[in-house]
């Protein structure tokens, strides 16, 4: 209560001023306290009981609570490790289909915390959980495929375990929702192991898919696989003979690959004047894919900036596909007012001095 004679607003103003003054040192102290923050990691069983049936929501809550801590500095690193390992453990235990906890958790463990084996173990656990769920439900889930692919990548990048990578990729590639990129990696590894027939089989998986986009991409990967096999044979030939083969007959694909694989691979391939193995079918599909990628990039640009990008942006951006064999020779990327992307033929180059002469004539 204000003392008699002292107006209440004066007391309020003083109290408010005091609070504002105290805020400074309190803020510093809070920051220090947070830095040394103690994180209690509860037991999974306890959280399961205390979630009162809302296990998935409890996992989300714990995840959101821990998310800022992944990038935050802790004075005690061991404490941070215990806390985040505990969170990952509980989150996937409460919700075994929590994909982000597996993928983000594994990325953090391997790239930031440099604990590769824990990252692999987390993904292996995810693969096991999804196996159990899928066996029980009698169907596959896209998240299960994603965990398998992440696990394969972890085996490849963190353990350099080629066999385990191929094993996981083979499991992923047999699933209906496996993407062409993953299948492409598996096929690449198999071609490296000279397992050509199996590689062609995996690459052919969706070449008759009902979705035209999936079908086109699968056919592109199939043609790429044929080309890679043939180019490997061509490289072997060049190493052996000291020159490039003049034509497919000289490459003797049947001798190198066996008749079945050679018949499949040779279909649509030819050797050009420079002795390189090329495929018109592959080029056509590849350029169409480049157009799709460029149009996708253009749409993102329009969403971000409210207008279509100009052709210079699409041509210059090194991130995009418009280079090398991903575009027809002597062309550049053009875009019309509706955002439709095409490959337009390059203008013939003007001879040096032409412009000067024209200017002089004009004068």
């Amino acid at each position: 209560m204000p003392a008699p004679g002292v107006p209440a607003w004066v007391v309020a103003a003083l109290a408010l001023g005091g609070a504002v003054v105290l805020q400074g040192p309190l803020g510093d102290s809070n920051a220090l306290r947070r830095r040394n923050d103690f994180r209690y990691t509860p037991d999974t069983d306890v959280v399961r009981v205390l979630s009162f049936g809302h296990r998935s929501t409890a996992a989300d809550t714990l995840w959101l609570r821990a998310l800022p801590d992944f990038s935050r500095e802790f004075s005690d690193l061991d404490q941070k490790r215990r806390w985040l390992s505990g969170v990952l453990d509980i989150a996937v235990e409460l919700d075994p289909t929590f994909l982000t906890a597996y993928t983000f958790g594994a990325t953090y463990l391997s790239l930031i915390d440099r604990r590769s084996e824990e990252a692999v173990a987390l993904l292996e656990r995810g693969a096991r959980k999804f196996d159990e769920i899928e066996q029980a439900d009698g169907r596959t889930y896209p998240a299960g495929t994603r965990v398998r692919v992440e696990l394969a990548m972890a085996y490849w990048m963190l353990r350099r375990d080629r066999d385990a990578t191929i094993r996981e990729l083979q499991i992923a590639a047999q699933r209906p929702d496996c993407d062409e990129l993953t299948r492409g990696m598996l096929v690449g590894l198999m071609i490296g192991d000279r397992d050509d027939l199996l590689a062609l089989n995996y690459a052919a998986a969706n070449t008759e898919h009902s979705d035209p986009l999936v079908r086109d991409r699968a056919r592109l990967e199939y043609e790429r696989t044929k080309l890679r096999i043939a180019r490997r044979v061509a490289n072997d030939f060049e190493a052996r003979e000291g020159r490039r083969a003049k034509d497919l007959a000289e490459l003797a694909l049947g001798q190198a690959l066996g008749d079945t694989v050679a018949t499949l691979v040779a279909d649509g391939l030819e050797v050009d004047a420079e002795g390189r193995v090329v495929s018109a079918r592959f080029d056509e599909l590849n350029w169409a894919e480049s157009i799709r990628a460029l149009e996708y990039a253009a749409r993102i640009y329009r969403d971000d900036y409210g207008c279509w990008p100009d052709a210079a942006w699409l041509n210059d951006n090194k991130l995009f596909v418009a280079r090398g064999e991903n575009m027809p020779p002597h062309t550049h990327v053009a875009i019309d007012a509706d955002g439709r992307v095409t490959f337009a033929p390059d203008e013939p180059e003007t001879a040096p001095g032409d412009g000067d002469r024209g200017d002089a004539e004009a004068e």
Partner: protein
Amino acid sequence: MNARTRAIALATFRESVRDRLLLLVVVFAIALVLFSRVLGWLSVEDELKMVQDFSLTGLSLLGLFLAVLVGAGSLAREVERRTVYTALTRTATRAEFIVGRYAGLVAVFWLCQLGAAALLAGWIVVWGGALHGAFFAAVAGLLCETLVLTAIALFLGALAAPAIASVGTLAAYLVGHGTEALRDLTANGRNPDFAMAFEVLYRVLPNLESVNFINATTSGRPVDWGALGMGALYAACWAVAFLAGAVALFRRRQF
């Protein structure tokens, strides 16, 4: 349901709809549904998982709060306002009064939950999600849960003061969702000392997990509609049991 019960149910429905407390709870649930998108943004991925999980939990809490704040004090309010005398001095029996109150409360609670669920469905679609059977199963399960909680609230309201009835309903919700997890603690020979006690609790207390299909919603797993149907029947059994108990208690009550 006869005409007198229907009239009491309709009166209860109108009275509850006008209750500001109900409006407040509904606003809370709607705010939680809308706010769940912010939580989705905070997450690295799985944005719609966050939206669905938190919103469906919000709908469950909506049912709980309605039962606790509106249902548990419903009978006491009638007695306090003396409107119960008007009803009972006419031809309505005490059983009809309780059943009518229950039907009216359930109708208004379901209306709130279905409204919030429709908003959530729209919210999910707006953010590019798709509605699967699991979502509808989760909402149906929540409606069943409300059926039981409202009956418990009325039962406890007939037994004790509104504050105690509210706390009791809250406790029933927590216990109802906890017994299954408690029993799981003793699975595979773990904690054998508690096994019998947890098993008894699991059997004799209402198990709201039987109608909880929220956890399966975001994983895309198929819905076991048979289990939902059985869960609904189970919930109806418990609702009838508590309602009958409320009628028995209300009959013995002296005004």
